[in-house]
């Protein structure tokens, strides 16, 4: 199990993470980010890619 954290005070809702890890991140009807705080280990590489492409560097993996 991995734990994902998004600092929503940093997030500007660009949705770049959605392309890298669509099972974890999505933009809702109001163009705001929603995400799953926990996910299967198989999502680790996708979440890492999402962390890299976040323009605001708002995403973290929590130990």
């Amino acid at each position: 199990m991995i734990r994902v954290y998004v600092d929503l005070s940093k997030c500007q809702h660009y949705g770049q993470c959605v392309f890298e890890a669509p099972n974890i991140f999505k933009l809702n009807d109001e163009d705001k980010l929603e995400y799953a705080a926990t996910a299967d280990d198989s999502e680790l590489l996708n979440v890492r890619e999402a962390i890299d492409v976040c323009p605001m560097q708002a995403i973290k993996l929590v130990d």
Partner: protein
Amino acid sequence: MGGLRAAESLRRSGFDGQINLIGAEPHLPYNRPPLSKDLLAKDKTLADIAFPIHHGELQANFVLGNRVETLNLEESHVELSSGAKYQFDYLVAATGLRSRQMSFPNNLGRGRYSLRTYDDARSLRDSLAPGKRVVILGAGFIGLELAATLRTLGCLIDVVAVEAIPLAAILGNEFGDEVRRRHVNEGVRFHLERSIVDLIGTREVEGVLLSDGTELPCEILIEAVGSLPNIEWLSGNEIELSNGVLTDQTLRVMSESGTSYQHVFAIGDIARFPYSTRSLPARRIEHWNIPIESAKWVGRQISHHEKPGSVLEFKQGERFNPLPSFWSDQFSVSILSYGEPTLADECLLIEGELGNEFIMGYRRAGELVGVAGIGMRREVNKLRGEIRL
């Protein structure tokens, strides 16, 4: 950022050799986009924008505050400003850009700023206060973002630019006009189709003289007139260095005689790389996602070259073909774009309406080559997959 991402990609794809990350700045890699926004507006420090680095996994040697002065390709080493020499089996050139500097007859130094590095931002921030008169030369993304951030801080902003409509060369007249109008509504004053011909003042900048004879008083002048690739250190090696570093489809650096160096790569803003499907001249792309994409690519290329067959996702013969993307926040205006709108021969409103949120599509010979929107994030993101480059 490019260097760090390349090192990460090398490790993730199995490279087990030594990695030296050499940088001219004294700081570990950090995210630059906040420099024109949060870092000026809020009480943020370097720690807030530094990239997380997993040193245990990265196993890289950081050599900071030490510029690479020269490359000796024949002997496979670089020499730093400290005089130290580093031998290499592979070289990744990721030296990025520096701000272009203007020169004036009355070439005062004090009161002038530019914005590229954390130290630039700190120095500008220390001089800011509500009510300060600021002239910004240049109405590109950096100039406009600075105008918005500083206006929000209560500064009085005059933007001087040679173009008739800001961003028109990148996103078209209608889009540019929408951005300009929103700045004007917030109290930003534009002096378009003008240049600064001289500075006014004796010991520090007290104003600027425009090409039409107007004098604008100011305490702060910010030059946001584009950037230059840091490539001088590569000269003397027969590398093709006109407008950046020319590379082949795999980002290997090209010689003046048109051959690729198998162990030398260029990534990020300095890499002038060819289109993979279009017969157009190679181009540099100064967007934030290009260093990331190109660094990941090069890490895999090197790992594969070192141990063929070891990199799972490596496809022989594949060409580097990233989808450029950029975003910009100015006041409540949030721009998001994909593709290369500058290639378009036609620009049309796809969704929404000017004056509110909207998306423009950019077509070349009928094919969608770019999209850009103000707001309408999800719709812009949906169109991403329809772009053909």
